[in-house]
């Protein structure tokens, strides 16, 4: 845990060839809960595909290291200041403390409701929040805020990526299994929406429970849950992942499993090998002594976005940097092969999705052939016309 609390300060050096700026420090805050069930060691032990592999501060730390030389060239020190609290109210206190000290850019590593509360409370303030670990669609739709940006893909982007893949394989009829948690329903709803959008047929939508109770056998037993009319694939919506990991090979029919297990749509995967990914994975593994997953990538790219804006604007002025981060000119390199930027209508980072199994990336979405009039990555998630966000 010592490493987590470390304050990373990158000192500016004398060697300057790019336009010289006054020696300046830009500090990013990293807000996280003291106890976050999503990173519970006991659950992470199972390493199911629905879960992160550790706290994403590591991703931000890797990005800080990468910014060292470019900071030197510009005469800017980049620093990262982690702060923790028990709940949203406590995080707000931490945020105010850092804001008073001049911090304007914050990475927020918290579940959707906490992110929503922080964003509501800071609307209109001179700051930017980067949501790095909450995939909730609502944060990009009704609950969107102008100062809240999202680097983690949302449920709709994941669902669309998988739907495109199923369509490309002509696996057109799908059985949807849905868990009892509120977040399971969000995942299931997103997939139902994607199925409709891409012309997949939902054969049935069935609720599962984690139980050996014989009275709930038809909901706890995968074989019984997967009987009935035929389908091409099973989509399992399980935010927790404990049920999902038992679905492959237990279905009554020999059908592939996708969603929260089997084949998942991820922002990042440790087995991704292209566009410099092995080097990035190596850096994260050296930093955190574990593999890299979605929230790590989201935290990493959030820091990279701020650094890129400082480099290109040659400024550390908040308004200048914030405008460039959210603007159309920015080119972010997410090591996924595409130029990334934030969608102006809901502040979601547009990006390719990696469709991955436990140890391989099978395909990258948008899948070839799914075209968009402006940017093919906008076939994933909420395009402008789907947006219910008004800032």
């Amino acid at each position, binding site marked *: 845990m010592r490493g987590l609390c470390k304050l990373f300060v990158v000192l500016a050096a004398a060697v300057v060839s790019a336009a010289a700026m006054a020696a300046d420090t830009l500090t990013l805050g990293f807000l996280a809960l003291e106890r976050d069930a999503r990173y519970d060691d006991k659950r992470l032990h199972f390493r199911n595909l629905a879960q992160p592999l550790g706290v994403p501060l590591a991703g931000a730390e890797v990005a800080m290291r*990468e910014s060292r030389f470019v900071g030197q060239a510009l005469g800017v020190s980049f620093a990262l200041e982690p702060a923790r609290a028990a709940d949203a109210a406590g995080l707000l206190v931490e945020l105010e403390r850092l804001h008073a000290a001049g911090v304007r850019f914050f990475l927020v590593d918290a579940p959707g409701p906490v992110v929503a509360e922080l964003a509501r409370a800071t609307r209109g303030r001179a700051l930017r929040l980067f949501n790095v670990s909450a995939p909730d669609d609502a944060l990009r739709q009704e609950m969107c805020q102008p100062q809240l940006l999202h680097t983690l893909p949302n449920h709709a982007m994941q669902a669309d990526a998988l739907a495109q893949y199923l369509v490309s394989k002509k696996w057109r009829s799908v059985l949807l299994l849905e868990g009892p948690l509120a977040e399971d329903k969000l995942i299931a709803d997103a997939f139902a929406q994607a199925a409709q959008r891409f012309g997949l047929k939902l054969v049935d939508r069935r609720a599962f429970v984690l139980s050996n109770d014989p009275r709930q056998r038809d909901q706890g037993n995968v074989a019984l849950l997967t009987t009935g009319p035929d389908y091409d694939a099973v989509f399992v919506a399980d935010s927790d992942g404990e049920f999902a990991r038992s679905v492959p090979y237990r279905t009554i029919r020999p059908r592939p499993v996708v969603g929260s297990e089997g084949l998942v749509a991820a922002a990042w995967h440790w087995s991704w090998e292209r566009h410099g990914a092995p080097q990035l994975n190596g850096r994260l593994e050296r930093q955190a002594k574990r593999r890299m997953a979605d929230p790590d990538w989201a935290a990493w790219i959030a820091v990279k976005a701020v650094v890129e804006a400082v480099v290109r604007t040659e400024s550390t002025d908040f308004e200048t940097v914030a405008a460039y981060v959210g603007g159309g000119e920015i080119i972010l*390199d997410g090591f996924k092969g595409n*130029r990334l930027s934030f969608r102006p209508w809901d502040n979601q980072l547009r990006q390719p999705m990696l469709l991955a199994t436990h140890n391989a990336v099978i395909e990258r979405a948008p899948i070839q052939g799914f075209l968009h009039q402006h940017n093919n990555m906008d076939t994933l998630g909420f395009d402008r016309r789907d947006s219910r966000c008004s800032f």
Partner: protein
Amino acid sequence: MKPKTVRTALVATLVLSLALAPAIARDTGLIFVSSENDNAVTVLDGKSYEVVKAIPTGERPRDMKLSPDREQLYVIASNDGRVDVIDIATLAVTHSIDVGDDPEMFDFSKDGSRFYVSNEDDALVSAIDVASREVVAEIEVGEEPEGIMMSPDGRHLYVTSEVANMVHVIDTASHEIVANVVVGNRPRRFAATPDGAEVWVTNELGGSVSILDGATHEVKGTVTFEPRGFRADEVTPVGITMTRDGKTAYVTLGRANHFAVVDVASREVRDYVLVGSRAWGAALNRDETLLFVANGLSDDVSIVDTRTNKVLRSVPVGRVPHTVVIDD
């Protein structure tokens, strides 16, 4: 440690015998293509373009260059952290030089006594003495150094850092970084005008070439590419080569499956030429009548007539061709 001593002795004997051997291997006309996924260098006949041999190398062979006397071919084997040296007369690896983790590109010093390698994983540039085959210096640079080029006068070494979007300019006498120059996004490889006044660097994600002033180390121009029918996102320039007179640059455009012919003086794109899938490596033959382009995802090499900018033919090579070297 003992086996190492034995190996060093063996290698030393080998060097001696090679040094005494008569120079017979120049200008064979052969074309060498490194094949990343075959762990081999594919050798093509210079006239028929038939594969005459595949020379086994270390894992993931990538950048290649002829030794200054043109008798040997140096090949980076990235996954083995070494450079394999191929004797062109016998078409076999004679020895290997350990160069540190995950090397990708390299270049020789002006007198050929050293070469410099980028080590992507360690954020280092290593200088290797050719005679002793030892790493004689390590220079710390930004994360993911990749492209590397010696200035024509040998005074500066240019290194790209993919993640910092910078070019490091290193003084070859002191091994100090004298400038960190911010360029376009994901800078990859270099070419220079013969007088060293302009250093061109491709920006893979930026879809452009940044032009550095060789004297002031400042960006003094940018070339952008707009081949018909492609979106900006699909134009990913990586490979670059320049004619000896410094008048024409050839820039491969990666996912756009084209290369661009650029007039160096006016910085205008004169032509876009369709080649294979993910065009990266580019090399001219000695009289500069032919351009060879390695197409990484279609496993072939396009051979282009530089007078007409027409593709004469595409020849199959190994899997994931990276670099082409012509010994003509």
